[in-house]
């Protein structure tokens, strides 16, 4: 049987229509729910953080919804896995925003935050936070619809350097950082800050990403003979190598790190090298009990096992999102990027339920608060080593 030309044409047209129908049929009905979209790195190199953040957001959404939502409207969390790749994050953003009316968004990286910024401004409907603490984003003019849930990397260095200047005036400091945007972010401004605090930067060592052997860098570090060494731009490797080799070669430095190296489980993975490891952390750890910590107790009720600092970050982000929405709705304003950001900036002396040890205000794009913690190997915990330091005071 020969299929005639006209039949073939009809068949073709039918198939084309079917394809179009499939592709175009993704429109969704609008809801009264308040949607939190998320590009979350649930797999890939940042997965440990992504999974924690995912759980943190989910838990706080549950707390809010169990209490009846905000003004009767429930929160709905719509995440997508991105594998910590910028184009996957952007694709996820497009997908979620095309299928839902999104007012709040959690982004997985500095790269994504920068890429999506102009789109956020154009859309004007979303307030965004994320896993990035990049100093560049801490600029309310350039990034009017985004904020950081904690101090930016330069502020973190600031807290560390102030602590060092208090402990040992005129000390020698060395920076060890990775050759990535993440790593290089705070170095230049911190160099200046160190000088202004009377500290001398005796060494700046940059390691190529993915380098296996850091013996050469350790030798350089030993030459610099710092009193304090600050690591930045890493999650775990090569910090233990530096510490072990450095100690064995007789270095007397104190070892410090920034947010993403400070999770308890990560630090304890260092083994012996972890003893005395210090760093700045804007949040209390999961297991802390001193002080007024109702939120921590609630978290411990919901999750009996240890939750990472990434979890806390996601949890707190959602708390701040909720507060911004509450204030906007209470003022009778519409939920869009500008109003939500203004509501966020109106937050003053806000009690986070113990997650951050002092009441916080969000004047700009970051929360420049933190305190120094030190690793205690015997208890396998990070314990506080200073008071809460707030940089806007």
């Amino acid at each position, binding site marked *: 049987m020969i299929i005639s030309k006209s039949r073939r044409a009809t068949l073709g047209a039918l198939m084309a229509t079917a394809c179009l129908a499939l592709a175009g049929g993704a429109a969704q009905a609008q809801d009264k729910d308040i949607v939190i979209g998320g590009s979350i790195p649930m*797999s*890939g*190199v*940042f*997965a*440990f953080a992504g999974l924690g953040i995912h759980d943190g957001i989910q838990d706080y959404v549950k707390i809010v919804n169990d209490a009846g939502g905000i003004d009767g409207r429930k929160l709905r969390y719509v995440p997508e896995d991105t594998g910590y790749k910028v184009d996957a994050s952007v694709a996820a953003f497009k997908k979620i925003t095309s299928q839902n009316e999104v007012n709040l968004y959690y982004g997985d990286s500095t790269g994504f935050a920068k890429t999506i910024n102009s789109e956020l401004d154009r859309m004007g409907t979303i307030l965004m936070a994320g896993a990035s603490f990049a100093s560049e984003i801490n600029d309310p003019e350039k990034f009017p619809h985004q904020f950081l849930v904690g101090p930016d990397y330069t502020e973190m260095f600031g807290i560390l350097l102030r602590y060092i200047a208090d402990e040992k005036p005129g000390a020698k400091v060395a920076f060890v950082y990775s*050759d990535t945007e993440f790593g290089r972010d705070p170095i230049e401004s911190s160099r200046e800050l160190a000088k202004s605090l009377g500290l001398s930067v005796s060494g700046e*060592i*940059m*390691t*190529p990403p*993915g*380098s*296996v*052997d*850091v*013996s*050469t*860098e*350790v*030798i*350089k570090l*030993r*030459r610099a003979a710092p009193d304090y060494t600050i690591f930045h731009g890493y*999650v*775990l*490797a*090569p910090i*233990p*190598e530096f510490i072990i*080799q450095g100690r*064995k*070669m007789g270095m007397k430095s104190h070892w410090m790190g920034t947010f993403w190296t400070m999770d308890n489980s990560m630090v304890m*993975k*260092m*083994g012996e090298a972890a003893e005395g490891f210090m760093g700045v952390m804007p949040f209390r750890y999961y297991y802390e009990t001193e002080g007024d910590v109702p939120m921590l107790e609630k978290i411990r009720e919901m999750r009996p096992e240890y939750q990472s600092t990434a979890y806390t970050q996601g949890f707190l982000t959602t708390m701040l999102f909720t507060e911004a929405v509450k204030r906007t709705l209470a003022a009778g304003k519409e939920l869009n990027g500008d109003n939500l950001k203004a509501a966020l900036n109106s937050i003053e002396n806000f009690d986070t339920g113990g997650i951050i040890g002092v009441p916080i205000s969000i004047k700009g794009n970051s929360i420049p608060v933190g305190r120094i913690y030190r690793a205690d190997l015997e208890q396998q915990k990070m314990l506080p080593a200073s008071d809460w330091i707030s940089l806007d005071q």
Partner: protein
Amino acid sequence: MNFDWLFLFEISLAGIGTGGLYALTGLCFVLIYKATRVVNLAIGEMLMIGAYVFFAFAAGMALPIWLAILGAVIAGGLLGALVERTMIRPMLGESPISVFMVTVGLASILVGLVELVWGANPQRLPEFLPDDPVMIGEAFIASKVFYGFLVAALLVAAVLLIFRFWRGGIALRATASDQAAAYSMGINVPRVFSLSWTFAGALAAVAGIVVGAIGGISPVMGVFGLSVLVVVIFGGLDSVLGALIGGLFIGLVEAWASAYLGGEYELLVTFILLVLILMVRPYGLFGTAEIERL
């Protein structure tokens, strides 16, 4: 000029230490190329599998260290044999570029596998090398680097001897220089192929354990293989001695670049060196020159 000789000496020692690892990995690469003429870009990933299997045995199942090493070596060998049978054998006779791309695909598969089974987090291997830094005169060397170098040197020496004196080694060299002649001499060429891949896989496992002991393991540790590419181009794709000398040389150069120019120049210098070698002497120091000029 107050030149810090001690610093230079220490840096050079560290460089030679890394160079030993490069030489060992280069050795695995050369083994495969010599016998089967395949440029195996997945060599870094084969190292990674060896390190992870060791991790699984030593940390996961808490086996004694020597048993874990043995297990990893056997696993590495099996992997090599499996890859050869399923991916390289069917590509016999295809253009070298196609086979090269197959190894690129293999690298992706191995990375995905490791990420699936063990997760994407970097891990540390259980400590099994002696801890105290080694002193040569006044210069420190990190202990791991020193012992890693020892292991690498021993293995390279062993392989050189095997190729010289053992029948299997001679069979390998024969197959490498002329497959048809080897066949007609009664050498079981397919078995030589399998043998070379198995052997290379086992060696890669050992290299992986050492590299993992020094820098930790993660699904992205395979990028080590790219530096090794420079090593074997420098030394000659089919020369064991070249891999040794090339490894030491590149290790030194990288250490000097990192120390005197800064960490970001390390890879740059290596790759500029690669381009220079390709322009000046593409077959490397000791490689056999294939007569085909333009």
